[in-house]
């Protein structure tokens, strides 16, 4: 059997077919689904797909994992060559970027679908009045604190006040072996961008100004630079963090090991806290604070994003398949309690988010990560990033911020390089 299967696949490559591989019972509508999820999230998503496939509703979904870093490249080349899948995961605020290779789904949605999701998430998915995707979750960034470390340093600051926060940090650094605060949770430009957005908004600045479709770069302003300065001082003058990353996930490891007291990270980051058995470490006591301690007169809102499902264009897709794809997407976005309980996200469907299964998970009850997120969403304390038609999360723009943070470059040139690159890209 295996030999035959591999043989068939080989032939698929030779005949240049788009290679929808078998798997479901014959007669099913076959749907290809690309996703970039890894590790824990991947497991949840796979479970959801399995669940959907087992419904025996005449639709079969084949999933394919694509490394996140290659995801957009692949999606674009695939769409361009008529090989795009029916459904692809990507960020909800990327509607404009993906618009040329995806199609709106208003005609396929079931009645009242709009009302199933948090408004803020739904709004985010509209491009020029059409719906381009369905949101799986709303995830945002806030401040994780390792409470044992705080305790041993004897601090319990007010996380809405910069002075309180910074003196607590100083205390931690002087009184314990741990570092106080990491601005980044991951060694990537995207992480820097998201954290920077939070601080920048609170400082009253903007990344861009103007309307979708006509954005102007704004963070090379005084406030933008000051915020960047503040960020780099964390590893510089303040001495709260070190300017090195041993690995991509170094901050997570330090946090778990008690070497780092606080850091800005996403709701889903708890996934990374889990040990081999998928359990949160017993001896870890942490909490998830709203990150509204940055200085400035701006809005107390945090950055948020939605993993969403898009529907790439492919001339080979039949109406039936498109319909099935949306059906699948609705199912996945409206039945994903696992996405919260195990994945750590706040589901974008309000009913799921407030379901008892979700409210009963330790993440809501005990650690409060999802709960905090829910509160911020309900209170409109979160904001999506600008909906540009470019790949705005790219390292091309935010790599310099990472480099500033690890003291590889100074603020002036970092911000300028970044802003120039973004300006140029927006002009194209």
């Amino acid at each position: 059997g295996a030999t035959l299967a591999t043989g068939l696949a080989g032939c698929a490559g030779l005949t240049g077919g788009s290679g929808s591989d078998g798997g479901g019972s014959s007669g099913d509508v076959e749907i290809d689904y690309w996703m970039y999820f890894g590790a824990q999230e991947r497991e949840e998503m796979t479970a959801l797909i399995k669940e959907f496939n087992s419904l025996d509703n005449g639709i079969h979904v084949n999933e394919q994992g694509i490394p996140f870093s290659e995801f957009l490249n692949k999606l674009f080349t695939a769409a361009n060559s008529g090989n795009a899948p029916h459904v692809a995961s990507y960020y909800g605020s990327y509607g404009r970027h993906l618009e040329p290779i995806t199609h709106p789904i208003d005609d396929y949605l079931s009645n009242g679908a709009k009302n199933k999701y948090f408004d803020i998430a739904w709004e985010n998915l509209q491009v020029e009045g059409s719906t381009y995707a369905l949101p799986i979750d709303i995830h945002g960034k806030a401040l994780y604190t390792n409470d044992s470390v705080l305790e041993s340093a004897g601090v319990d600051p007010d996380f809405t006040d910069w002075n309180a926060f910074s003196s607590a940090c100083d205390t931690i650094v002087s009184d314990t072996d741990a570092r106080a605060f990491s601005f980044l949770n991951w060694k990537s430009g995207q992480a820097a961008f998201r954290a920077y957005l939070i601080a920048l908004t609170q400082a009253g600045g903007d990344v861009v100004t103007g309307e979708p479709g006509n954005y102007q770069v704004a963070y090379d302003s005084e406030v933008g630079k000051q915020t960047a300065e503040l960020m780099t001082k964390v590893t510089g003058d303040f001495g709260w963090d070190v300017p090195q990353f041993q690995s991509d996930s170094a901050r997570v490891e330090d946090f778990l090991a008690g070497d780092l007291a606080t850091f800005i990270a996403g709701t889903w980051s708890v996934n990374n806290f889990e040990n081999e058995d998928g359990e949160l470490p017993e001896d870890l006591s942490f909490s998830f604070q709203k990150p509204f301690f940055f200085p400035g007169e701006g809005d107390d809102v945090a950055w948020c994003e939605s993993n969403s499902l898009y529907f790439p264009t492919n001339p080979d897709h039949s109406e039936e398949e498109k319909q099935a794809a949306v059906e699948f997407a609705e199912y996945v976005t409206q039945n994903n309690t696992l996405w919260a309980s195990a994945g750590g996200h706040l589901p974008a469907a309000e009913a799921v988010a407030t379901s008892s299964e979700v409210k009963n998970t330790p993440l809501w009850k005990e650690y409060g990560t999802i709960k905090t997120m829910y509160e911020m969403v309900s209170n409109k304390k979160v904001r999506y990033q600008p909906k540009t038609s470019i790949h705005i999360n790219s390292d091309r723009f935010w790599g310099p911020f990472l480099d500033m943070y690890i003291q590889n470059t100074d603020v002036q040139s970092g911000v300028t390089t970044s802003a120039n690159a973004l300006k140029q890209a927006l002009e194209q």
Partner: protein
Amino acid sequence: MSNVETVADAGTASRWEQLFDRSTRELLVGLLFAAPYLALFTVFLLYPLLKGLYMSLHEWNFLEPSKSTFVGLENYARLLNDPAFWNALWNTLEFVGMTVPLIVGLSLVLALGLNQELKGSRILQFIYFSPYVLTVAVVGIVWAQMFAQSGVGTQYFSWLFSGSPLNSKFWAMPVIVITTVWWQAGFYFAVLLASRQNVPERLYEAARLDGAGPWRMFRDVTLPHMKNGLLFVVIASTIFQFQVFGQPYLMTKGGPVGNTETLVYYLYQLGFQTRELGFGSAVGYTLLLILIGVSALNYVIVGTNDE
């Protein structure tokens, strides 16, 4: 005694021979044999080459090429003012400048060493050469591991760099260089070993009788004879290493501070991340010109040195 019916009659000529004269026949048969490769060559090598030039003169629309607009040399002008291009060029030069001498030096040492009679020389040869049969995917990931937090490199050279050298502005490139040397030296070692073994043993005997010591023999017999082998190694490795992509892609993603972003990496980003195919083609063409320049330079050197 000749058996007339067994030897074809000297008078006959086949129809094929009657139809075409000899040179036409050779031309037809010749083209028939050449056609399959020529087709591949034209379609997949020549045509893209010309198309690249064409594309580089356009603002190319990725999804709808028909909507591309002719912009003349604008892409080239942009390139000259593009700090990312200059950065990639500089990084590539830096990489080549470190890698090539190290590869040449190491492969020469390996070749000269293994040219001596050694026990286990087959195993040694196997070990030195074997990295060459690995894909860059394996090489890049393994070496990234070697210099990750719990890697050998980080473990034993922590006095040199704090943290992973792959995150260090200064050390990232050298680590990629070392990786490449490990991966590639075996190939050039094999070339130089053959080159060394082609030196006539008699010359060493003549040199011994002339009173030459080891250094003299190396300088006056070995080196001059290995000249062509060494030149091949220099040229081939320069051209190949100029196209470095896999190592930075897998090990550093071009960072930190774009310090390991190379030309082909940049080309890849332009083509498939930002999808600026016109501008990307201009970068590709520029890389082509640079490399033709490099080989031309090399050929000039070979040409003047050869008598």
